[in-house]
C-alpha cells in the first residue's frame, strides 16, 4: 500500500499523470471517515491523500460565498461560518461516529458522498449549494466548471455531477459554495405517541406550509430515547427557526396546525436533529445501516412493511434510515420489495465486507442507465484511475 500525499493542484496533476503512465489506479482519501462506505473495492495498491489540500481560500460573508480546498475539515468550515451567523445549506454531518473512525470528515468527502443534515428539507442538498469547482480529470488535466456567483448557466452544470459520485469522476481540488444566513434561534416541537402514518402525515402538512421548517423527522421509540424519553408509539419532530418575534409567530402557527394533540417543546431539539443527521444512533450498534429514499407519501407504508425496530425518517419522510441485524438477507429482501413498490431507491451506508460484496450498495441501475453512467465515467476517467469500482462494476 503506497500513499501519495498532495498539497497542491499541481501535485494532483503530477500524481494523476504518474498513475496514467503506470496504469495504477488509486483510492482518494482525506479524513478517511467514509472509507467503509461503498462497494468493497479491488483495493487499489495506492492511495491519493488529499488531506493536506486544505484551507478556506476565501470567505465573503457579505456575498454568501465560500471557497475551500477539499481536504478542509467540516469543523473548521462550520466554525468560520457560525462566527458570521451563516451555515452550509446542506449541513453535512461528520461521519466518524457512524463508521467508528478516528478521523474528521472533510468537505470533499461530504460532497462526494452527498451527505447532508436535516436542514436539507429547507435548503436542499450539496448539489443545491455547490456553485463551482476545480478538479483534475483522468486525462491528468486540471479543469474548472460552474462559477462563483449564485446565478450562472454558462456551460454544463458539472458541479452537480460530482455530488454523490464518490470520487469516481475526478479529484476535486477546489469547491465554491453558496452559504445561507442562519437565524439566531430555533424551536422544536414534538408530536408524541403517534403511529408512523399519522406522524408522517403531520410532517407533510407542515412541509407544505409556509413555515419553512428546518427539520421534519419521525422517530421510532428506540431511536433516540436518551434525548426524547418515552415517546409511546413514536414521535414526529418539527423544527422552525427565526429571530425572536418571527419565531414566536412560527411556533404559534405550528401549534395550531398540529391541533390539540399531545404536543410539547423539546429543549434538545437541535441535538436530536444533529444525531439523526449523522445517523449517530448507530455508532454504538453493530447494525447494517440502510438509507432509503421514497416519495414522502410512501414513507409510513415502506417503514411498516420493512418492520424493523431501529429506524427513523427525515426530510418529511423523503429519507428513511434503517438498522438491520448484520447480513440479514430476509430484512434486505423486505427492504428491496418496499423500495420497488414505492418507486424509491436504497443505499447500503454501512455494513461488513461480506454484505457489501454480496448486495448492491448503491441504487440498482437499468442496463440503459448503467451504459450512460459508464459513458459519463469514461468522459472524465477513461482509464478508471479514481476509486475504481467504488459505486458500480467499472465505475
Amino acid at each position: 500500500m503506497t500513499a501519495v500525499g498532495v498539497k497542491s493542484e499541481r501535485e494532483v496533476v503530477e500524481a494523476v499523470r504518474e498513475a496514467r503512465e503506470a496504469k495504477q489506479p488509486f483510492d482518494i482519501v482525506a479524513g478517511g471517515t467514509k472509507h467503509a462506505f461503498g462497494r468493497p473495492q479491488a483495493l487499489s495498491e495506492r492511495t491519493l491523500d488529499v488531506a493536506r489540500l486544505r484551507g478556506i481560500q476565501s470567505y465573503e460573508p457579505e456575498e454568501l460565498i465560500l471557497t475551500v480546498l477539499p481536504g478542509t475539515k467540516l469543523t473548521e468550515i462550520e466554525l468560520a461560518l457560525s462566527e458570521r451567523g451563516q451555515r452550509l445549506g446542506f449541513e453535512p454531518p461528520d461521519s466518524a461516529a457512524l463508521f467508528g473512525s478516528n478521523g474528521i470528515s472533510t468537505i470533499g468527502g461530504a460532497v462526494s458522498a452527498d451527505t447532508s443534515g436535516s436542514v436539507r428539507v429547507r435548503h436542499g442538498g450539496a448539489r443545491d449549494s455547490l456553485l463551482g469547482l476545480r478538479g483534475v480529470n483522468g486525462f491528468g488535466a486540471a479543469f474548472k466548471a460552474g462559477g462563483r456567483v449564485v446565478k450562472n448557466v454558462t456551460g454544463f452544470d458539472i458541479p452537480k455531477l460530482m455530488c454523490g459520485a464518490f470520487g469516481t469522476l475526478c479529484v476535486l481540488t477546489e469547491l465554491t459554495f453558496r452559504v445561507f444566513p442562519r437565524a439566531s434561534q430555533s424551536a422544536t416541537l414534538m408530536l408524541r405517541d403517534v403511529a408512523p402514518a399519522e406522524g408522517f402525515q403531520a410532517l407533510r402538512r407542515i412541509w407544505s406550509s409556509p413555515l419553512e421548517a428546518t427539520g421534519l423527522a419521525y422517530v421510532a421509540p428506540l431511536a433516540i430515547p436518551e434525548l426524547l424519553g418515552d415517546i409511546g408509539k413514536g414521535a414526529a419532530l418539527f423544527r422552525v427557526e427565526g429571530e425572536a418575534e418571527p419565531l414566536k409567530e412560527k411556533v404559534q402557527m405550528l401549534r395550531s396546525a398540529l391541533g390539540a394533540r399531545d404536543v410539547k417543546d423539546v429543549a434538545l431539539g437541535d441535538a436530536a436533529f444533529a444525531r439523526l443527521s449523522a445517523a449517530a444512533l448507530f455508532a454504538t450498534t453493530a447494525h447494517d445501516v440502510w438509507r432509503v429514499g421514497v416519495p414522502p407519501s410512501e414513507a409510513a407504508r415502506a417503514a411498516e412493511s420493512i418492520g424493523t425496530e431501529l429506524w427513523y425518517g427525515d426530510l418529511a419522510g423523503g429519507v428513511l434510515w434503517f438498522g438491520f441485524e448484520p447480513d440479514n438477507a430476509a430484512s434486505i429482501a423486505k427492504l428491496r420489495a418496499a423500495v420497488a413498490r414505492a418507486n424509491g431507491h436504497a443505499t447500503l451506508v454501512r455494513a461488513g465486507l461480506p454484505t457489501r460484496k454480496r448486495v448492491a450498495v448503491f441504487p440498482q441501475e437499468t442496463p440503459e442507465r448503467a451504459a450512460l453512467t459508464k459513458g459519463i465515467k469514461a468522459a472524465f476517467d477513461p482509464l478508471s484511475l479514481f476509486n475504481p469500482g467504488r459505486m458500480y462494476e467499472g465505475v
Partner: protein
Amino acid sequence: MELPKPDPQIVARRKDIVAALKRIVPDGVVSDAAGLSAYDGDAITAYRQAPLVCVLPRDKEQVSAILKFASDAGVPIVPRGAGTSLSGGALPRADGILLGLSRMNRILEIDFENACVTAEPGVTNLSVTRAVEGRGYYYAPDPSSQIACTIGGNVAENSGGLHCLKYGLTTNNLLGVEIALADGTRLKLGGKSAGAGGIDVLGVVAGSEGLLGVVVEAILRIRPKPPVTRTLLAAFKSVPAAGQCVADIIAAGIVPAAMEFMDRRCVAAVEAHSAPGYPRDAEGLLLIDADGLKAEVDDAIGRIGEIARQNGAEVREALDENERTKFWAGRKAAFPAMGRLAPDMLCMDGTIPRKALPQVLIRMSEMARQYALGFCNVFHAGDGNLHPLIIFDVMRPGELERAEAFGADILKLCVEMGGVLTGEHGVGIEKRDLMPAMFDEEDLAQQQRLKCAFDVQGLFNPGKVFPTLSACVEQGHMHVKAGRIPFPNLPRF
C-alpha cells in the same frame, strides 16, 4: 455570428426524411416553405434560418421514434419549446430536423401529497402555477416570458426569473425528468424521493441547452404560496448608492423574495409606457419584495427600509395589492418600454458578485462614453444578474459594430470581476464564441467529452454552446430590431 454550414448530402435527402417523419407523425410534419418560415428562429431576431423540416410529435413514443430515425439517418436535431430563447438555443439548421414539443402540453399528474406536478415539455411555465393555485400552491421559477415559455425549454435553459434569489433556478425546483437519448432510448432520472442516489445525471441535464437529450416529462416541485408579500420602492440619488444598498441588504442576512434595479433612463421609459407611478427624479430605483409569514416579513421590510435610507434613498411602500401589481407590471414591461424608444437594442445577461455592483456600474458608464452610445440598466440586483440594454441605431454606419464591441466588453468585465457570461439566458449560438473568455481549453474539452457520453454522433443541437474551431470574435447579445421585437407583448427577464 456565423451559422453552421449545412451538409449538402443531408439536404439532398430531404424528400426521404420528410416521408419518414410523416410515417411517424402523420398529422405533424411541416415541410412547405410558408409553414417553415414560422419556425425560422427564436427570440433572437438577428439570426434567421428555416429548418430542413419541422416535426411536432404528440407523445414520447413519437419522440423516441423520431430520434431513432434521426440517429440512424445521421440528421441533426434541434429541440424547440415555444421558441422564446434569448440566446438562439432553438435556432434551426438548414440540414436539421426541428423537433417542436409544443403539442406535448398535458399536465400528467398533480400530486399534492408529495408537492409536485408531472408535466409534458410543452406545458407553459405559468400553466403549472395555474393548475395548482386553487389549493394555495405555485411553481416558483418565473422567467418573465412565463405565459409563453415551456417547461421543456425551462429545463434546457435552467431558467431563472425574478424570484430565484430566494427560491432557486429551475434546477433547484426539478425533482426528475424522463429524457429521450440520441438513439430514442428513454430514461427516468431523479423522482419524487429526496435525492436519487447514484450519479446525479439529472443535475447536468438541467441547463444542457438541448445538447444531451430531449426531456419528455418533468417532475416539478410546487410550493405553498407565502401568505404575506410586501413591496418597497427605494429611490436613490446615485446608481452606486443603489448598488451599495443591495450589497448591504445581502450582508445583513436578509434574503428578499426579489430585488430589482432600474436606472433613470429605464424608469423614464417605463413611466412613458405604462405609468406605474415610479419617482422620475431618481438616478436609480430598487423594487424589493419580502414574502413569508407576517412577523417575518414585517421584520425584513423594516430592516430593508432602514438600510435603504442609510444609503440615502427615499423609501415608500406599495399601499395595497393593486399598487403592488402596478409596480411589478412596470418592471416586467421595462424591455418592451425601452423597445418603443430606441431604434435598436442589445440586451446583455452577465452575472457578477454583488459587491462588484457599484464598480461595474461606474465602469459601464465610462464604456458608454467611450463608445458614444446610450445604455440603460435594469437587472436582478439580488443575485447580481445584469441586463444592460445598449441603445443604438443600425441605420447609422458603424453603430452596430460599436454596440457589439460595447456588449462584449461588458461581458468580459463581468468575467474579470469574478462573474460569468450568462446568468439565465443561456449560451446558445449567441455567446458561443465568447466561451473562451471564461473557460480555457481543458474546461471546454471536459464539457465536450461529457456531451459525447450522451450524443456520440453530435446530432443534438450542433453549433450551439461550444465555439467552433473557426471562431470569429463575436459578442454576447440579443439584437432587437425596432418594431420587430419578437413577442412584443411578452414581459422579459
